[in-house]
């Protein structure tokens, strides 16, 4: 579903953000990406839907080459759902309109069909009652669940998450993770940047550990948690698991 091969990215020649990153996510797989802050996790995941350009290497999503200038990026992105750390709901639109905008403008769905779809998804994330409110009237956890619903409204073939719970108050983390766990169990293909190792243990198939722009470890979940091969991954794990 996602093929990342030998991707390099730099802002200046001396500052390499991604170094020879190669990995893949197959259909129905859940891959968790972790690593210290500044290691390039967000950059890598944003390269997948071409929100960030890169200098060399290739990324294929469902067979479409992301870095091909001829690729219709809006069309490609409409099939790749993305959830951001800071939710990024559109504050000037009601919740239901947040869910309908792209359905109508990008997919060309009629308004009533988009609303029906939007309401179904809101119900699924437990927020049907909030449809007529504005984002600022919702809690962080609620906003993030709306953001997930908004991405799902496009019927994506894969979902990308960039630290979806790290901007949340601790008591709201689980409501968002629950939605993500359900999604994973239904077979959604997911690439998730997160430090929530509980989530990784529950539903991940593989865990990728990044450090300084490199993929240091890329292993099945049990291997990763059992005995990470690299020192850096071991240190990182002991640090985040100790609290």
């Amino acid at each position, binding site marked *: 579903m996602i093929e990342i091969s030998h991707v390099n990215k730099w802002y200046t020649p001396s500052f390499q953000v991604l170094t020879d990153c190669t990995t893949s996510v197959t259909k129905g797989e859940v891959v968790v990406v972790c690593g210290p802050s500044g290691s390039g996790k967000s950059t890598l995941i944003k390269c997948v839907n071409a929100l960030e350009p890169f200098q060399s290497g290739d990324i294929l999503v469902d067979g479409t080459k992301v870095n091909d200038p001829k690729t219709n*990026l*809006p069309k490609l992105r409409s099939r790749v759902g993305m959830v*951001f750390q800071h939710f*990024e709901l*559109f504050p000037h639109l009601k919740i239901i309109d947040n869910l309908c905008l792209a359905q109508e*403008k990008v997919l060309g769905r009629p308004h009533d069909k988009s609303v029906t779809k939007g309401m179904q998804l809101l119900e699924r994330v437990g927020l049907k009652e909030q449809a007529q409110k504005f984002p*600022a009237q919702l809690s962080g956890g609620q906003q993030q669940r709306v953001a997930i619903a908004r991405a799902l409204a*496009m019927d994506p073939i894969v979902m990308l998450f960039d630290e979806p719970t790290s901007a949340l108050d601790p008591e709201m983390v689980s409501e968002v993770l629950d939605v993500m766990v359900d999604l994973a169990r239904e077979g959604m293909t997911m690439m998730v940047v997160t430090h929530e190792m509980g989530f990784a243990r529950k539903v991940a198939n593989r865990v990728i550990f990044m450090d300084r722009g490199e993929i240091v470890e890329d292993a099945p979940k049990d291997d990763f948690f059992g005995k990470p091969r690299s020192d850096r991954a071991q240190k990182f794990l002991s640090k985040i698991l100790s609290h």
Partner: protein
Amino acid sequence: MFGNLDFDVIRRALPYLFYEGMTFTLTLTGLAALGGLVFGTALALMRLSGFKILGRIAGVYVDFMRSLPLVLVIFWFYFLVPYIGQWLTGASRPISVGAFASSLITFIMFEAAYFSEIMRAGIQSISRGQPAAASALGLTYAQTMRYVVLPQAFRNMLPVLITQTIVLFQDTSLVYVLSITDFLGAASKVAQRDGRLVEMYLFAAVVYFTISCIASFGVRRLQARIAIIR
């Protein structure tokens, strides 16, 4: 000194002052603000587009307009437009456009320079995550601007835009150089005709002051409300 003032002249002139004068002033203000906002937003988008040449053209235009006194622009534009029109269409005689059209175009072009700077600040105030989220959903650049960035920029800048429109409302009185009957023009005609300069200009000042004050008060209320929403 006020003993021989005749304030009844104002009462008698009211229909003329408001039906003709104020209607013209408000129409010109409204249309110029609307046109200036549309044209100004286009200039702001040019400057932020990432195309260097477009940005430069818009930048030079804005700087040029902002370094000229408005009265001069109104004046020159009125006399030049017929010739520009003649040159553009290849007509044999200068094309007369009329004082209203001429002043409206002038104000739109002049105000656009100011509105563009306001809208530019408004667009830049939107966090980069917003256009990123819109793109991630598959919206094109144009759709992202139209449905996500510009509505928020406009909403955030509304108080400043209205304040600029209040300035515009006062500036429209400069069309007197074209002997147009706007509110001030009407007042001044009555003043000359009846020899009641003090009364009429005093009254005109009070009217401009009152309307501007009420509008400013409205802006402050609006600002407070926007602060709560955000």
